[in-house]
């Protein structure tokens, strides 16, 4: 193990990450380290590969180059079994919840327990109800996923993600498409679970306001690089025009409103055709 050089305070350490899809470089020498026990947000405009970054950290996708250490394990060197062993310590909240549509809420949360443990049914019941209680949905145990609202489905998925008491939990766009109340609930849950269970939380999102209320530190990435890093307050006061545009949600700025195009007037006159 490469423990000599790694910082024990970091749950995830990414150095010199490169990843490309076809000709397009998604990440180019990206460096990120995520502190244990903190809520870390990774923000950036759509299409910057935030979700891809999550996939790399969880071993769903392998990086082309660079080192990805998760809980001290080098993702590139893991065998299939070792990866699954590591994933037992991870929770992952998919954007759409990814609940099993044929099983009840109860069975969904019980699924990882049934797969990985040989606990008696009474104990499984205990754990499942406890996890559902934590997300405030103990009363919904017998519902089917189809009967849940988007926010509730995400909370059930959260209960399932923490069923095995993971060390790290990944949130993929946890605030996308939620009403303000559900959003508030999720924000509170992320914070509470992180503190009470001693988790490391990693959030990928572009919802600046929510992330600012919940995260301890944030990375801003764009064009395959880290643009800014710091606490929400530090980012707020960042002088860079790009960071200001992103944090304030301005329509125009360093990121132009218009997709690169030939001169409008010229194109209208038909001179630029063929």
């Amino acid at each position, binding site marked *: 193990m490469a423990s000599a050089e790694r910082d024990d305070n970091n749950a995830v350490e990414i150095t010199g990450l490169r990843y490309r899809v076809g000709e397009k470089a998604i990440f180019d020498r990206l460096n990120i380290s995520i502190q244990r026990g903190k809520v870390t947000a990774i923000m950036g405009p759509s299409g910057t590969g935030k979700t891809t970054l999550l996939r790399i950290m*969880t071993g*769903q996708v392998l990086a082309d180059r660079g080192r990805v250490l998760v809980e001290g394990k080098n993702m590139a060197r893991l065998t299939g079994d070792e990866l699954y062993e590591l*994933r*037992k310590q991870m929770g992952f909240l998919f954007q759409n919840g*990814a609940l*099993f549509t044929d099983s009840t809420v109860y069975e969904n949360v019980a699924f*990882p327990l049934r797969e*990985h443990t040989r606990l008696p049914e009474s104990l499984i019941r205990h754990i499942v109800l406890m996890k559902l209680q934590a997300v405030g949905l103990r009363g919904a145990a017998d519902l089917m996923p189809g009967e849940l609202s988007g926010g509730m489905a995400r909370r059930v998925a959260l209960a399932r993600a923490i069923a095995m008491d993971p060390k790290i939990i990944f949130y993929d766009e946890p605030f996308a498409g939620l009403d303000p109340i559900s959003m508030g609930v999720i924000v509170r849950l992320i914070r509470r679970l992180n503190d009470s269970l001693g988790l490391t939380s990693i959030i990928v999102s572009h919802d600046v306001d929510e992330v600012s209320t919940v995260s301890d530190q944030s990375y801003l990435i764009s064009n395959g690089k880290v643009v800014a890093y710091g606490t929400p307050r530090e980012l707020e006061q960042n002088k860079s025009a790009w960071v200001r545009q992103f944090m304030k949600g301005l329509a125009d700025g360093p990121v132009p409103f218009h997709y690169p195009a030939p001169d409008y007037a010229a194109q209208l006159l038909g001179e630029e055709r063929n």
Partner: protein
Amino acid sequence: MGLLRELYYILLGFLQGLGACWLFLFRILRYTPAALLRWRIIWQQIYSVGAMSLVLIMVSGFFVGMVMGLQGYNTLSKFAATSALGTLVALSLLRELAPVVTALLFAGRAGTALTSEIGLMRATEQIAGMEMMAVDPVRRVVVPRFLAGVVSVPLLTMIFSAVGILGGFVIGVSFMGVDSGAFWSQMRVNVDVWDDVVGGFIKSIVFGGACSLLAVYEGYYSHPTAEGVSRATTRTVVNSALAVLVLDYLLTAFMIHGV
């Protein structure tokens, strides 16, 4: 030249699909012992692929048997050999009709359901979700469904044959007036347990394996979109039908020329 090129790519695609399917089968077989330990999951899958197809199989079998009764009687009466009706119905059902028709119906009823179910699980990230929970979806989702198909098809085939023979009996004996004793005794003399019943049974196991494999393969590797799943479902039916007919020829040739 364009046509030749086209054919070349079709052949290449076919070989690639065949190879991928074959590798997938090995992956399935590797997890089979582990999956067998959790027989309840398989048991529940047998319900949805096997028991749910029962009515369809029984109704189809009965009608096929009745048609055989009518056609057979019509032809045999020209040779004054209607007493051989039992033999005719039983042999054609046991050897060919029951295994092939059951497999085709299975592909249409249960195979498509398997493909779309697994395909939708992929489209809704349930498969990825399992992987993230450190559960191999091949072991947890694919293998039980495959095994359920392999178990169900032979049983359905036997039910098809039995119901079909009864259908032939109803038409031949009750409606056409063939002697009931002759119907059964001729059948018993000419139908062989090993060649006919066991031969048909072996065929149905192979067909069950082929149809189930194609169904789970198409589902597992379907494009995770609505269109992708619907295309995969169509491919399941078409490929299963082709596979069954080709395998039927090969098995028949093998069985007739004898081991």
